[in-house]
């Protein structure tokens, strides 16, 4: 059956990897069903009405279906073609578009959100706050992380103490629009880990949000604009790699050749795509030091795969390896690792109930694994799983592998 890329042969092997199908049980909320609906609309057999839009908009874009599909169907490309039309249709998506636009154009909004969240938390209203779409996800008292008290100050500028004298490589860290403001310690730890391993970290003027938020919200031209700005700023500068800590960003950068195809920035986009690395991927690629004293975790450290690493980029062993080195032993798998946690950008706002239901399963698994820490290499997943374990009343911490590594280095420094 037609559509961009290889045909869907309707085998159904993708069904059970789809988080929305697993929760709802409706074929229209499965990859095979969504493809069928998109083809039906294209062939004029189905109307693109609210109902069809609902089923399509429930897609998390996690791409687990692509990993599962033996026929090589490019689900992501197919749904991407529909995103702008989807955005036009649904009011909630329009609200999200506004939010998304503010998120990548103004730091103030996100900072304000973080501030409100931590105020509510301090007032003992964390439980209520966690149920509010948008605010619920913000870390506030997310176990294991500090609320951002440094709004407006780039974390990059605050940590230069470990800058190596002679560098093995020069990298720029893509600071990200939302991630950087919500969980700034991750970028700070990233810089520290890179520097400790003899990698020079530089700041490149003119870099923007990667554009993934915009693309997902159906704001295609915004996405192209942001991508072009990044490509021109970063691909032209004197660096070896662009490092990201958010999986959605590295996946987006990797896709720049496609996003920028046909524009004047196409060549630079391709170049930038080849320079893009996830932080764990880069560490494993060029080698990194083992801490003298690895972290000693009581109980299990349970590793979860971020969809935009596993499914979008095929990265699975690198973040595990970083955890293993930081801990001195391999983490266990959280279980159902190929299944998305339900985070996915706007999802928490567009489909709060479904998102929470999908997330709740991760808390259940954390309980089953007796996990004291869940390690996952993506900010969005950290927020979502953090919210889920908090709502489930679990004491589980949620950490990025690079945070674990940074903590292990610091522990080794102090000898404590």
């Amino acid at each position: 059956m037609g559509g961009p890329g290889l045909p869907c042969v309707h085998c159904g092997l993708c069904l059970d990897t789809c988080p929305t199908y697993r929760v709802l049980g409706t074929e229209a909320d499965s990859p095979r069903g969504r493809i069928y609906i998109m083809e039906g609309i294209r062939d004029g057999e189905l109307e693109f009405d609210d109902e069809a839009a609902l089923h399509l908009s429930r897609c998390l874009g996690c791409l687990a279906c692509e990993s599962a599909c033996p026929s090589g169907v490019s689900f992501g490309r197919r749904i991407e073609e529909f995103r702008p039309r989807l955005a036009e249709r649904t009011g909630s998506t329009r609200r999200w578009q506004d939010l998304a636009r503010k998120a990548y154009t103004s730091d103030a909004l996100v900072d304000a959100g973080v501030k409100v969240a931590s105020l509510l938390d301090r007032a003992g209203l964390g439980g209520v706050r966690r149920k509010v779409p948008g605010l619920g996800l913000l870390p506030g008292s997310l176990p294991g992380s500090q609320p951002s008290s440094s709004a407006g100050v780039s974390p990059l500028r605050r940590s230069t103490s470990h800058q190596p004298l002679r560098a093995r490589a020069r990298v720029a860290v893509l600071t990200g629009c939302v991630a950087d403001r919500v969980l700034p310690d991750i970028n700070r730890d990233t810089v520290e880990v890179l520097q400790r391993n003899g990698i020079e970290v530089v700041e490149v003027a003119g870099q923007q949000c990667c554009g993934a938020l915009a693309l997902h919200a159906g704001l295609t031209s915004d996405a192209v604009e942001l991508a072009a700005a990044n490509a021109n700023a970063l691909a032209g500068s004197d660096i070896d790699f662009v490092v990201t800590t958010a999986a959605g960003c590295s996946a987006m950068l990797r896709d720049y050749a496609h996003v920028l195809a046909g524009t004047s920035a196409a060549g630079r986009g391709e170049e930038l795509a080849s320079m893009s690395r996830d932080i764990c991927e880069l560490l494993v690629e060029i080698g990194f030091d083992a801490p003298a004293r690895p972290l000693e975790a009581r109980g299990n450290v349970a590793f979860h795969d971020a969809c935009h690493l596993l499914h979008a980029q095929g990265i699975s062993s690198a973040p595990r390896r970083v955890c293993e080195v930081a801990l001195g032993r391999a983490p266990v798998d959280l279980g159902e690792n190929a299944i998305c946690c339900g985070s996915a950008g706007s999802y928490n706002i567009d489909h709060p109930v479904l998102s929470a239901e999908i997330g709740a399963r991760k808390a259940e698994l954390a309980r089953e694994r007796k996990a004291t820490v869940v390690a996952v290499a993506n900010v969005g997943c950290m927020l979502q799983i953090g919210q889920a374990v908090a709502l489930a009343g679990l004491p589980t911490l949620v950490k990025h592998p690079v945070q674990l590594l940074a903590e292990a280095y610091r522990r080794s420094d102090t000898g404590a």
Partner: protein
Amino acid sequence: MQDNSPRSFAERPVVAPATTQDALQAAPHLATAPPAGSDRRVVDAIREIVGPRGIVDGASARKVYECDGYTLEKSVPRLVVLPATTEETSRVVSVLAGAGIPFVPRGAGTGVSGGCLPLQSAVMIGTSRLRRIRSIDVEARTAEVEAGVVNLEVSRAVDAHGLYYAPDPSSQSACSIGGNVAENSGGPHTLKYGVTVNHVLALEVVLPDGRVIWLDREYDAPGYDLVGIFTGSEGTLGLVTAARVRLMRKPESVTTLLAVFPGVAQASRAVSAIIAAGIIPAALEMMDALVIEAVEAAYHFGFPAGAGAVLLIELDGIAAGLDALAARVHDCCTREGASEVKRAAGEEERALLWKSRKRAFGAMGRLAPAYCTQDGVVPRSRLPEIVAKIAEVASRYHLRIANLMHAGDGNIHPLVLYDEDVPGEVERVLAAGNEILTACIELGGSITGEHGIGIEKMALMPKSFTAPTLAAMEDIRTAFNPRGLCNPGKILPSSRTCVEVRRPRPRGGG
């Protein structure tokens, strides 16, 4: 209770003449038709039982249920119901039975014979929300699981205890236990461990009138083996809501060999040689050149270029002696012309080999926009003959046919590649499939090894069975399903009445 006294099939009306039913029969059942106004009361009653999440009545949400893995015939269900418990299922079926409305069970829709195609305006009852693993008894090595539980999930749930659920259809990552029971599904490891019926101990069933019964064969129960009758009945006797299944201990040691042959003929002879040598491999699978091309494109295992056929041979058991057994298999293969025989180096290579095999069906999408999976059986010794026949049919009909076989049990899966857009191609696919299956019967085999009759192969039933045998089958169905309300129009040809099947739509561009 009305009209459940068994009568011969021919005597009774296919559907009871109830007034609601009359109205429903008149309702259009095309893709975009909303549930007819007269449905309202029934729909409301059902909604009351299952709640808003258990009912699918919108146009696009229903349309996606118009076919399963068999895409040559399509029909949109008037309504899809997704009950979450046995009790809900039973109450829904009672409402439908009371209104005389037929229904069709659906699991994951990975079936490849159109088994869950809704005919006669049937309401579809899906098991995708019946997904609890109710209990696991490690000591007794059994598990009670609901019908919608995915096959592979059973093995995952008991993995920590060193146990697994043996029947492993290639669709096991998606298909449901209920669907497995309905189709009596097998898989690569059927050769040594048997099919679904050998691993089901008891079934919880909702009868077509809504009553819930347990069929139990666990302790050599006296009386008829109703579990045996239900397994493989393709949803025509009732709806399975749960099964108690047998779990197996994982073998101490496993080794997998890959043997490369110049052609299918040599590979088939090697299959016979292995069995003749008294060896029963855990699995003995064959893929021909076209299949190898597709899986190589998908999984890059590194099958030797230009291989005409490969055998995948798995041996398992206690570690001692496995090497000697592998050496004997190696000998059999080289003697029949294998150019190369190698053992999977480690668990990772073994897993990749099996992934290639299990996903081979799906990987065919890399070669053609669509394919039709045939499923036939021949006595193992006649494999070379059927393979020659398939090649001849392919060239005569100008079709490409790839061959995938559970060679150990003579179960062949010719995959007929086609493109809906090419005028007349669908017709040629159907005709070619018929010829191949007829040849299977003539060679002393059968028209299905594991995919069932469904809608696809009904016309071939009279070629496979005598009239009295078919009549006996109908009597069995009538006993359980007297009003023909449960999965009407399937398996037995005489019941193919008021079929309202839509031919596939012509594909648009892209």
